[in-house]
């Protein structure tokens, strides 16, 4: 059970995430939606502790994640595997080594730093690669793969971390429709097959409705929607994304009607 209480992250005076509270029970597939800049990435990065929370707490099965340091923090990072939009693989390392990076928290440093990987660990990595049809590419350099292949390697890396949660930050934003399906299906399979909770930032509402069993909507750092996809009416969805037009025009993100923004576009074009 992941519990987020009043989580806030400020960059300077600006709150990227503002007083977010929710809890996620094990095995869920949760989509986080919202316009660009809403704070989705920052929220996920705080859960993995790549970003430092300014206020609030994150609890996992009673463990205060926000207070972790050192080795315990690294173990938590392994338990909450991150998947990035840009894959964040090490381009010049081969695919197998990239997957083995997911085992760093478990393997003694003298072995990993000298690349003397134990055979069991290699077997674990290869079996993860096999699950996504990537075993034949194990010796390839990661930066020679297509985007879809790289993301599958990143998912394999996440899987060998034997995580309790997978945090996916727009995992499909740089992929074509076919690879989008492959990657989302892979996440769904991990979720259903291993019962690993998945929290996934998505830009596409369609995808969010198809794959997620719960949606969290964010706007200006705040959680403004939390419920089943069926509860996300077109009206609420439009409100979530309408804010974007206001932001683009530089006006305050209040609930202005769509009408008032259209003339603004017109004048901008004419000027």
């Amino acid at each position, binding site marked *: 059970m992941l519990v987020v209480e009043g989580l806030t992250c400020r960059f300077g005076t600006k709150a990227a995430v503002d007083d977010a509270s929710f809890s996620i029970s094990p095995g869920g597939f949760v989509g986080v939606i919202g316009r660009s800049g809403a704070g989705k990435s920052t929220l996920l990065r705080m859960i*993995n502790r*790549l970003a430092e929370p300014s206020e609030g707490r994150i609890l996992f099965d009673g463990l205060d994640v926000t207070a972790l340091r050192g*080795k315990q923090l*690294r*173990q*938590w*990072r*392994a338990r909450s*595997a*991150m998947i*990035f939009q*840009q*894959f*964040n*693989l*090490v*381009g*010049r*390392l*081969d695919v197998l*080594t990239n997957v083995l*990076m*997911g085992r*760093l*928290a478990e393997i003694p*440093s003298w072995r*990993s*730093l000298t*690349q003397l990987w134990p055979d069991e660990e290699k077997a674990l990595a290869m079996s993860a690669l096999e699950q996504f049809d990537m075993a034949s590419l194990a*010796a*390839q*350099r990661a930066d*020679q793969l297509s985007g879809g292949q790289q993301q599958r390697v*990143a998912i394999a*890396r*996440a899987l060998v*971390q034997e995580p309790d949660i997978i945090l996916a930050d727009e995992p499909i934003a740089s992929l074509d429709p076919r690879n989008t399906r492959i990657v989302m299906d892979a996440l769904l399979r991990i979720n259903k097959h291993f019962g690993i909770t998945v929290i996934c930032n998505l830009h596409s509402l369609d995808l969010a409705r198809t794959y997620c069993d719960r949606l969290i909507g964010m706007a200006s750092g705040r959680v403004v929607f939390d419920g089943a996809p069926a509860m996300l009416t077109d009206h609420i969805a439009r409100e979530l994304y309408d804010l974007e037009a206001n932001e683009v025009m530089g006006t305050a993100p209040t609930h202005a009607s769509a009408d008032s923004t259209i003339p603004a576009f017109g004048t901008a074009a004419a000027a």
Partner: protein
Amino acid sequence: MTESPKPDFEGLRARHPEVFDRPLSARLATPTMMIAAFSVFVFGLIDLEFSPSRFFSGLHQLGWIALMMIPPDPGSSLPVYLVALGETLSIALLGTTLAAVFALPVSLLAARNIVPSSIFRFPVRRFLDSIRGVDTLIWALVWINVVGLGPFAGVLAIAVADFGAFGKLFSEAIEAADRKQVEGIRASGGNALHEIRFGLMPQVLPVIAGQVLYFIESNTRSATIIGIVGAGGIGLQLAEQIRVLEWQKVSFLILMILVAVAAIDWISSKLRFAIIGRRAVV
């Protein structure tokens, strides 16, 4: 090619006055700079007593020396010269390697993405800068006084001088590394050593190796020069033969150096290509 429509000159001029009516100072800036640069050049020629007449009257001397150099001939000293050349190449290789080995850990301390605090980074940078500010030749003179004449002083001179240069170059390569790859390691639970070993080094090592190879190349020349002031190797032989006016031996030695530099050049370009190639690095 179709003729483009005539631009609306007056309209454009009215809409973009900043393009057409630039202030006088902006328009004069370029000519002023050119005149200033030319004046500095002329002043330099005068100040350094540049004298075409002296140059041309000395030219026949140069031609005479050139004639004396033909044909290049080592006399009976070829084995000595070969040993000396080997010594020079060893000085370059060993000096550069030592410099790189010591510079790598220090360059980490000078890189912003490893040591974010400028209070800790600043002294390391200044330290590297001040070492780099002193030329290899000066270091050679210093080390000859410390450890005596010979190749050991040469190795130390190159090692110290290039330690400063490498420290700066390596830290810049580290700063230019892609942060996302390091973040991928951190997010998976890696510690700081893992981040450096797996996130940074694969990106940085090919760059560093290329720089080291280039320095070995250019240090083959430096090692010759510092040999002239007494740090061993073929430079010592060259200085000696110039002093006793053995021009045929001088030209032979110069040819040896040229061939050696070309060979190093060739080998290092091959190696560099292999390193930046498509194989996975460790």
